[in-house]
């Protein structure tokens, strides 16, 4: 699956949408979902939580392993995807769409400037 051009990416394999009214949507990439295998449990931050860029804020559990979920940005969680909590397989089947994880109102400082473009992330993931 190719990485959508309109998103930005972290080296922890999260994607971040272009903020709308200061709120960005966050998920994990298809590359990350493939590496995990079938995701069976997702633990997300709570709405209202404050998350910091680069810090863990949840867990993704697959058949073989558990992985920490990192927030690529700092801010306040405004919404979590209850559909993906109820049906974690959405992370595998639609990582860039129905499998989104949570939304964050970005701090005034905005997104970190070390996020990758789609092409940069594709090259980064290929080297992993």
């Amino acid at each position: 699956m190719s990485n959508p051009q309109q998103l930005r990416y972290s080296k922890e394999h999260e994607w971040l949408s272009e903020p709308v009214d200061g709120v960005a949507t966050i998920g994990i990439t298809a590359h990350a979902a493939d590496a995990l295998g079938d995701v069976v449990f997702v633990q997300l931050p709570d709405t209202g939580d404050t998350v910091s860029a680069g810090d863990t804020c949840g867990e993704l559990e697959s058949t073989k392993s558990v992985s920490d979920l990192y927030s690529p940005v700092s801010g306040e969680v405004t919404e979590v995807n209850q559909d993906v909590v109820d049906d974690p397989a959405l992370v595998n089947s639609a990582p860039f769409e129905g499998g989104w994880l949570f939304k964050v109102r970005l701090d005034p400082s905005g997104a970190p400037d070390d996020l990758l473009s789609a092409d940069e992330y594709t090259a980064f993931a290929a080297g992993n």
Partner: protein
Amino acid sequence: MTEPSAPPRRTALDEVHRSLGATMTDFAGWEMPLRYASEREEHQAVRTRAGLFDLSHMGEFTVSGPAACDLLDYAFIGNLGSLRTGRARYTMLCDERGGILDDLIVYRTAEDRYLVVANAANAETVLAALRERATGFDAQVADDRDTYALLAVQGPAAAGILARLTDAELEGLRYYAGLPGTVAGAEALIARTGYTGEDGFELFLAPAGAPAVWQALLDAGAEDGLTPCGLSCRDTLRLEAGMPLYGHELSTALTPFDAGLGRTVKFEKPGNGGAFVGREALQEAAARAESAPPRVLVGLVAQGRRVPRAGYAVVSSDGTVLGEVTSGAPSPTLGKPIAMAYVDAEHAVPGTEGVAVDIRGSREPYDVVALPFYKRER
């Protein structure tokens, strides 16, 4: 032992796996398919239809000669002399202290000939022990790891699929039996064994012919939904079936009595005056198990959704450590996380209240159940 720097070995089916888009993993020095697509779908295929596995990483050794039977009775804890030709038995290799070096399956392929199948990770250990223990016996130990590829067809549709490709009488082939035959024209040892909890077959055959047999099986099984399956689902299948895995439920730190497998130790063997490696230590272990019950291997079923992993502590409601998880995974069949764990005897009774697993600092409630989690209908 495989040197860490040595490149991983590839099976005769390596190109097939890659062409199927498998996710490969390094397993005991071999590059093996972990999964082809969804490991849960592969798991369900084996439970409901049939799955096809490449198990060529397993270690095969042939023990032959007039004293082959005596050697195996001396080297292993089971009574292999009582094994009839054409049958197979689960047994173990122990050290002098009774610690488990490997668990394995022995096929008696002729009166004076046995095929020993060891775990890939322990194959060197098993070969070295067999050769060392063979001193003084009129028997030969041959390293046949390059002689065989190993395919497995497992699941309720396995017998019907294999029957289309073989001249062997599968109906008369019982569980834990094996017979020579041809599969899609290739000579094979056809064994009714497996590690999935389903009916199924393991096929030992020459590596050069393995890709053609693999394809013939997929073609013959297409109408039944035969699915290529990787090691990931093999692990969840064996876990549901309550089957131990070396390195998880079994180790050199445990005797068969500690692992709840004391029944595999046969002190009454006709050969060698009953002598075998580990005998004295195992007699002590048997007596100890009577007087002071060791931790018991139990099943745990999650009330919640977080998955226990090997090494996590089993705890009581006040945090007292009761035992340790040896294997854990989300169970596709039960739809819940499950685990095998060694637990103090007083908390090992099915239905024991107040048992939890410490999952990264959070106490998650678990039900203690008898193994296995899953048993097929016969």
